[in-house]
């Protein structure tokens, strides 16, 4: 009888269970816990979780609120600093040269077979399809 060392077996189980987690690491992100971010960002779109963009992207977004993807989203300087600090301290990974979450490679990959149809006006409306998106839960597709 061939005996599989317990450690190897445990490692194999761990790898197997870790794999889906790695593939879908953006399906569960920590929710927004900063009231100013919730209020100001959440006024025009869902307050996206800081983990959905890298710090460089957040910095560039907070630098350009006067022309925020075509809309004026200006805020007083103290509010900008406050929100910037929260977003960058809790930022995720990704391409810092891309400003839109919807342009990040993982996002494009996850949504490559999805069509908005009549469900949502844009991919920025996460909750149109992901009911618990505001709580950072995106598994329900």
């Amino acid at each position: 009888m061939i005996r599989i060392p317990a450690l190897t077996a445990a490692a194999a189980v761990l790898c197997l269970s870790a794999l889906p987690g790695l593939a879908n690491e953006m399906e569960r992100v920590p929710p927004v816990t900063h009231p100013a971010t919730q209020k100001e960002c959440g006024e025009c779109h869902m307050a996206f979780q800081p983990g959905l963009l890298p710090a460089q992207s957040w910095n560039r977004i907070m630098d350009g609120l006067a022309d925020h993807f075509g809309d004026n989203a200006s805020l007083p300087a103290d509010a900008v600093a406050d929100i910037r600090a929260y977003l960058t301290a809790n930022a995720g990974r990704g391409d810092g040269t891309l400003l839109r979450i919807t342009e990040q490679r993982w996002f494009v990959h996850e949504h490559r077979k999805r069509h908005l149809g009549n469900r949502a006006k844009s991919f920025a409306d996460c909750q149109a399809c992901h009911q618990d998106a505001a709580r950072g839960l995106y598994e329900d597709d």
Partner: protein
Amino acid sequence: MKRLSSACAAAALLLTAGAALPARADAARDAILTAYAAEAQREDSGFTGFDAARGRALYMGPHTGGKAETPACATCHTPDPTRSGQHQKTGRSIDPMAVSANPARFTNATDVEKRFSRDCPAVLGRACTAREKGDFITYLTGKP
């Protein structure tokens, strides 16, 4: 007995708070309107007061000069301000503009100014005057 009395105290507190909240909101809205009236007076010495009908016309539009996608306040806030609106681009739900449906409207001066400073250029292509702001709030405060 002690529990009963504290429960009564809590109930009394709730009652007074419930009665005080709309009153405080109304006072805050009145203060915002008073400030806009003073500013409107400075802008135009002939200013005689705000007008709900002018506010309604401003709300309904359509206007030119702003963004093509947003020719009126009603574009996003819908022609019935007692209903929830929807952000033109993102689809985000917007709470009703009419005070009758949303008593928290126009109770925070900073927020009110922020919205006018963003939305007037998007709809009209320019800033709103103090008179326009007051007309707008007057219309939406009186709308049943």
